[in-house]
């Protein structure tokens, strides 16, 4: 089991994100005496990398861009050590996302915060939204309209499932977020390089804040005819066409178990295997 299941009530049979406790949240809280309302957030813009107030991550990027591998590796390993003490995000394949959408309620489609930052995307309607906000916090989204670019769209269970299936088809993998909050507040549909956690893991080795899924994808070479429909779907550099064998090839250690290749395969030649039951991969998160 990974640390998410250890700390958030998961078991060998039921990963943490199927435990309804992790989605439960109150709607209201009374103001404790002496605590005022939160009126305005401070500046949100990250200082430039050279700035002393820059985040550790920005400093790591700057060190890397200066060719200073020692500083870079030191900052990243410190960040990993800190992140490994907290909950993070985990990749979840489509079939499990669909189960989870019955637990995290209400569900609202919303603008992706990473895409907004990385590519200045402005998702303005249900056709464009790529993120899902989960839980009662979504009922109060209007407090901070900038975070949602002015609108969200609440979805029924059926609509939410269609929404995720649509983006899966388009090529986004799925991820649940338990970062900072005390409940699962978001189901993201992500790809490289827009998604910050994916990028920070792949490009910078921040392995602790985004965990691989409970699964690893295997290609059944009996069924695979080498058609290549799965190629281009992998965000993690795990999937290629192996010319020697004339088949799709998945590197088990690179694979995050997101299942995008599985949902694209017309011959059901890709199968999920439980990571925890494969001796060499059980500790590879």
């Amino acid at each position: 089991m990974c640390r998410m299941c250890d700390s958030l009530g998961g078991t060998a049979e039921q990963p943490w994100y199927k435990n309804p406790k992790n989605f439960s949240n109150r709607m209201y809280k009374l103001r404790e005496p002496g605590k005022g309302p939160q009126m305005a957030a401070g500046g949100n813009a990250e200082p430039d990398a050279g700035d002393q107030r820059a985040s550790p991550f920005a400093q790591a990027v700057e060190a890397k861009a200066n060719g200073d591998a020692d500083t870079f590796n030191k900052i990243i390993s410190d960040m990993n050590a800190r992140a490994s003490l907290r909950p993070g995000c985990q990749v979840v394949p489509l079939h499990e996302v669909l189960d989870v959408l019955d637990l995290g309620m209400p569900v609202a489609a919303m603008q992706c915060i990473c895409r907004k930052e990385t590519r200045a995307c402005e998702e303005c309607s249900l056709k464009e939204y790529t993120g899902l906000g989960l839980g009662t916090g979504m009922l109060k989204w209007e407090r901070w309209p900038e975070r949602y670019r002015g609108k969200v769209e609440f979805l029924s269970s059926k609509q939410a499932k269609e929404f995720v299936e649509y983006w899966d088809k388009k090529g986004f993998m799925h991820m649940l977020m338990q970062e900072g909050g005390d409940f699962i507040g978001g189901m993201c549909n992500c790809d490289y390089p827009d998604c910050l956690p994916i990028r920070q893991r792949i490009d910078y080795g921040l392995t602790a804040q985004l965990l691989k899924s409970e699964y690893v994808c295997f290609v059944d070479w009996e069924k695979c005819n080498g058609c290549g429909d799965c190629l281009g779907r992998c965000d993690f550099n795990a999937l290629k066409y192996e010319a020697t064998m004339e088949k799709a090839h998945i590197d088990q250690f690179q694979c995050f178990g997101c299942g995008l290749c599985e949902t694209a395969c017309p011959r059901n030649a890709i199968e999920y295997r439980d990571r925890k039951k494969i001796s060499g991969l059980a500790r590879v998160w």
Partner: protein
Amino acid sequence: MTQCYVAPIIEIDRERCTTPFACKKCLQICPTAVFGVRETRQVRLEETDKFAPGSFRLRVAYRDKCSGCNRCVDVCPESALTVRMPEEVLE
């Protein structure tokens, strides 16, 4: 150990680049998605006006990924960007 290569220096002239979230040309053209943009302030009950100068701020978020291709320099309508290799590397 990660290999580190010295990357180009990207300078943003903030007198010229004032509404990056509305413009977004460099953010969307960069092959390696080097840039990032954020609102400078979040106000309760209010969406930020992307056309108000200074309401969003462009930053070089992943400079190590800059290949120096200069596409952002070419696309910037305000000529606010310069990309150059540090001189000590060129010598």
